């Protein structure tokens, strides 16, 4: 009964996301563009939270994976003619490969890891700026191929982009959830407190952490690649901007970084609130309101928004059951 209910809710949510949102906002490209941007941040936020929750690592360098993914996909499709959807996956793969360069940082913990990965992100930005023949240098890449029309569906527009980024997020969330529920997930959770105790029972903790770093990098890279083909333009300062690290972290913490869907909810709420409510009221300094909102959430509910909503739903369910 509980399972059937869960499946029904999931089905309704998918229907609303894939059909309801395009029907409601498909005619207003501005709003649809904002939703796509929010989901792009959500994708990075989800990947960031995955690394924190499962790998036990706080990263300040996800912009590196975002940038590497976007450049890999853009360059492959522009210079080698790789089909855009294949390039999207190769962008993720490129970011995962880039994460291999960060493996030495896995020996570090806490703030040391965070700072090391931030430095790595900067190195990749410099590489993108200096490798002019491939990346176009500081001038960037223009006219990156947009998503094609497939099976009569036009993916190059705002609504098509929305469907793609939504699918990327759903697949990423399912992958995250599957890892979390597996023996790998248990071992990864346990490693945070007692790494040595897990190693002596056969857990290759460094390999597991490296795998989580690669998975997180892959998801971020795919999201970065999506963004490159969606906006059709790239430059190093934009692709490797710290915005791609800071906003996802804020979104994940606001929504509830310990849950799978919290970062997605957080990204949608803070980005859409900021753009649709705070920005029209305060064109300059609207981010301050966002900052205050984030501080309030951390103080009032350190677990984030989603756990609060779920608790409320459960307690209301309990009251109805008693009534």
């Amino acid at each position: 009964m509980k399972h059937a209910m869960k499946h029904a809710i999931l089905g309704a949510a998918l229907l609303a996301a894939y059909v309801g949102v395009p029907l409601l906002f498909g005619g207003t490209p501005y709003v649809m563009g904002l939703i796509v941007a929010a989901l792009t941040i959500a994708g990075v936020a989800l990947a960031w939270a995955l690394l924190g929750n499962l790998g036990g690592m706080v990263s300040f360098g996800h912009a590196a994976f975002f940038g590497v993914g976007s450049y890999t996909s853009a360059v492959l499709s522009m210079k080698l003619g790789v089909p855009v959807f294949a390039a999207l996956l190769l962008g993720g793969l490129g970011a995962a490969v880039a994460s291999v360069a960060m493996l030495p940082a896995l020996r570090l913990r806490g703030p040391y890891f965070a700072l090391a990965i931030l430095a790595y992100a900067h190195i990749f930005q410099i590489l993108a700026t200096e490798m002019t023949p491939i990346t176009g240098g500081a001038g960037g890449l223009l006219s990156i191929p947009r998503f094609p029309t497939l099976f009569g569906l036009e993916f190059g527009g705002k609504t098509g982009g929305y469907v793609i980024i939504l699918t990327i997020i759903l697949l990423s969330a399912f992958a995250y959830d599957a890892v979390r529920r597996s023996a790998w997930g248990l071992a990864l959770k346990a490693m945070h407190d007692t790494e040595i105790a897990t190693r002596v029972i056969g857990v290759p903790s460094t390999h597991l952490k490296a795998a989580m770093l690669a998975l997180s990098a892959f998801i971020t890279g795919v999201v970065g690649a999506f963004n490159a083909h969606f906006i059709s333009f790239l430059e190093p300062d934009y692709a490797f901007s710290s915005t791609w690290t800071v906003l996802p972290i804020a979104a994940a913490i606001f929504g509830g970084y310990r849950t799978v869907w919290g970062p997605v909810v957080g990204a949608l709420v803070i980005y859409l609130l900021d753009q649709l409510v705070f920005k029209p009221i305060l064109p300059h300094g609207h981010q301050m309101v966002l900052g205050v909102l984030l501080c309030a959430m951390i103080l009032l509910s350190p677990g984030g928004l989603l756990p609060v909503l779920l608790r409320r739903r459960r307690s209301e369910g309990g009251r109805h059951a008693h009534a």
Partner: protein
Amino acid sequence: MLTLEGVHVNFGGVQALKSASFAVAEGESIGLVGPNGAGKTTLFNVISGVVRPSGGRLDFRGQSLLKLPEWKRARLGIGRSFQIPRPLGHCTVRENLIVAQRFGARTNDPQRIDEILDILNLRDKADSDATTELALTEHKALEVGKALATNPSLLLLDEVLAGLETTSKRAFMERLGAVRDRYKLAMVIIEHDIPTIAALCPRVLVLNFGQIIADGAPDAVFRDPEVIRSYTGETTL
């Protein structure tokens, strides 16, 4: 099965182990005793890979362990417990054993997990939070359980009986005996309680200041004047 030859460990200027040499045969039970700071836990750390020795030879079933990380040693069949229990955080008792089995033994055998829970009297606590909902005896049992779930052939038990009162200690000893017989394990047990060691182990090693000073049957070892002096400073107990 396990051979140590001239193993030494230096921590800065301190020699924690000085040329330790001994062998453990298949199915053998050995008691490892010695005063505090003698190097007993360091010896376990060396065998399980937590500490790299400064020199010497360390072989398990003909294979050198020296370059293998802890997790590979566990997969070869070396299980260990910690003196201060280290349950896996955010996991239930059963999940602790599942992680140990999936990674250490690389099998998925719920029946064996149930068997371990039964032998160690943990069945009722299987779904309890391993960090917050266990008594000391249960924590100690879980330490043994995690090591057992890796399907070891050599079990290193670090003071699993310490801190238990007499009745619990007796019951725990019986469980250890049952574990050894059921899985035909070799065991090395660190324990301060001499009657307990004498009851469980036909062979005893004594460490003092990082050096093995006696190796033999409990009766002979505990009458050895050097052993008595290492514990009491006197030559008679």
